[in-house]
């Protein structure tokens, strides 16, 4: 019987080489990512377990990225514990507060490759699906067990095939496409499942555009979102991980899918989308919510803080001014993103437009710092979650959109379809 990408990758990592949807298998993990949850939650669990040594220091990567640099005494303590642990355990891949967001930095460091099984202590670990990786989020206890043993149990997920055909036309972005798909799936529409995005649109997408989609697959409950390798993935691997050996994992033609959805965007074009409060699956066509006044516009996060996202925003903001009374906060996803943005003159454009450019961190997206919302405030954000209270006060409201829509809205001071702005 044919296998899906999820089944194949999990099967490569089990003792008997088998994995069929619905089964529970024990699998060896290629890479474990932990962030601040190491210092706050995992270390006490490791103490309780009587843990001595990481199973393989080369296969662990530690980040201080959520509140970077420390926003208060508690986060400073968590960061200190992570530094100590990395040193004591001689873990070479330690990314301290200067690095940026794990989901951008890990692919930049060439730490993931097609066909791998990756676990992170963060729900947005699905992002590496863009590189043909089976990557999924678990939490503290499961991460602790992996640190000790290098393996864990996984229920092999059923797969849903989502085929997308046609061209996305600027300023519409892959964010708009995923917001549209999420609005069709609903908040648990892919719970426990692997989403296999495929088709000519996905084949033609750059890695950054793909990462936005795989990142948000979890908002419908998906466990993983492994895409097929395309030419952009190949060149990414050549550039960022030249010494890694890997082979692409393709689904079999007769693989079993529990659902098959088709989006033909030449027939029915994707429009700029906005997810209204308080769920990422509340997608609406941007024109329907145009005119909602905003206090803050945020471009950043593991969803849309990459160089291509900043370029789109800069094209819209060049030579213009952010509306009075609106804060535009731009948080490049990684140190590398920041430096490339500097070289390309994007930071200059943002600063001249009246924006605030922060260091690379999860920051405002998790309501940590660098853009926390006050009571009654409204934010349009390029991030992934608009749960009530996510970015600050419980009576603040978050609208999710593409970097193009966020930039256009920052100029007008109200939610704005980017197609109405000259760039």
């Amino acid at each position, binding site marked *: 019987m044919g296998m899906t990408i999820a089944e194949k990758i999990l099967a490569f990592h089990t003792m008997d080489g088998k994995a069929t949807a619905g089964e529970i298998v024990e699998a060896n993990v290629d890479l474990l990512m932990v962030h601040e949850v190491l210092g706050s939650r995992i270390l006490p669990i490791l103490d309780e377990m009587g843990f001595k040594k990481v199973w393989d220091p080369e296969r662990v990567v530690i980040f201080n990225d959520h509140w970077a640099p420390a926003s208060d005494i508690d986060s400073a303590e968590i960061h200190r514990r992570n530094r100590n642990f990395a040193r004591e355990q001689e873990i070479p891949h330690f990314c301290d507060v200067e690095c940026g967001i794990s989901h951008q930095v890990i692919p930049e460091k060439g730490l993931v490759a097609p066909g791998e099984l990756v676990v992170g202590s963060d729900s947005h670990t699905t992002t590496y699906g863009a590189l043909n990786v089976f990557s999924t989020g*678990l*939490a503290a*206890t*499961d991460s602790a*067990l992996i640190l000790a043993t290098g393996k864990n149990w996984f229920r092999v997920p059923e797969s849903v095939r989502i085929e997308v055909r046609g061209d996305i036309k600027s300023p519409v972005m892959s964010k708009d496409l995923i917001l549209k798909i999420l609005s069709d799936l609903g908040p*648990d529409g892919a719970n426990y499942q692997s989403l296999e995005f495929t088709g000519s649109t996905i084949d033609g997408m750059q890695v950054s555009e793909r990462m936005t989609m795989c990142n948000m697959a979890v908002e419908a409950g998906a466990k993983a979102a492994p895409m097929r390798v395309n030419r952009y993935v190949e060149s990414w691997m050549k550039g960022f991980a030249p010494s890694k050996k890997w082979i692409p994992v393709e689904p079999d033609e007769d693989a079993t899918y529990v659902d098959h959805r088709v989006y033909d965007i030449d027939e029915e074009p994707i429009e700029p989308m906005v997810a209204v409060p308080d769920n990422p699956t509340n997608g609406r066509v941007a024109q329907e919510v145009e005119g909602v006044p905003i206090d803050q516009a945020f471009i950043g996060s593991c969803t849309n803080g990459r160089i291509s996202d900043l370029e789109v925003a800069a094209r819209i903001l060049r030579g213009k001014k952010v509306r009075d009374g609106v804060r535009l906060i731009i948080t490049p996803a990684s140190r590398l993103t920041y430096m490339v943005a500097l070289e390309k003159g994007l930071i200059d454009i943002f600063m001249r437009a009246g924006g605030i450019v922060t260091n690379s961190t999860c920051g405002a997206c998790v*309501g940590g710092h660098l853009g*926390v919302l006050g009571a009654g405030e409204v934010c349009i954000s390029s991030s992934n979650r608009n749960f009530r209270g996510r970015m600050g006060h*419980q009576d603040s409201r978050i609208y999710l959109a593409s970097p193009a829509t966020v930039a256009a809205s920052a100029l007008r001071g109200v939610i704005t379809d980017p197609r109405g702005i000259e760039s």
Partner: protein
Amino acid sequence: MNRDLNNITGRVWRFGNDIDTDQIIQGQYLRLLDYSEMAKHTFEIPRPVFASKVKKNDVIVAGRNFGGGSSREEAPKVLLELGVGCVVAESFARIFYRNGFNVGLPLLIVPNVAKLVQDGDVVTVNLMEGTLSIKGKGDVLHGKPLPERMLRLLSAGGAVEWYKQHRRT
């Protein structure tokens, strides 16, 4: 762990569909290193009185997709910290489901439970049989029996205890 898996009796706190992890415990509190401090903010948005009024073995009843969103294990941990006896929902988000059993918080899936049980009802949950009975009404709702693996984790008192008992030395 001394939990009686056959008899968890308490008052019902009823919630709707899609109670995400930020509704259970907001991201801003994750930096608190002490769980007893963090637990004071449990359900702060949807049910501000919960943390101060909940009693040991009270039962949370919810609709679909309880615990969606973040991977944060703090979500089931704060419920456990406050003495919640069990969460009974129509469905659970994937990571929350796994986290619950890992930390030793029982979770039971019962179809339509949020429609059939009222806030303030007193219920008894029997995890071995997968049932929920409502005091004074004689109704017994049947849920999905717990998977063998989850029952083993609960009996051990969570994944860490299970690991300590089964570690090959």
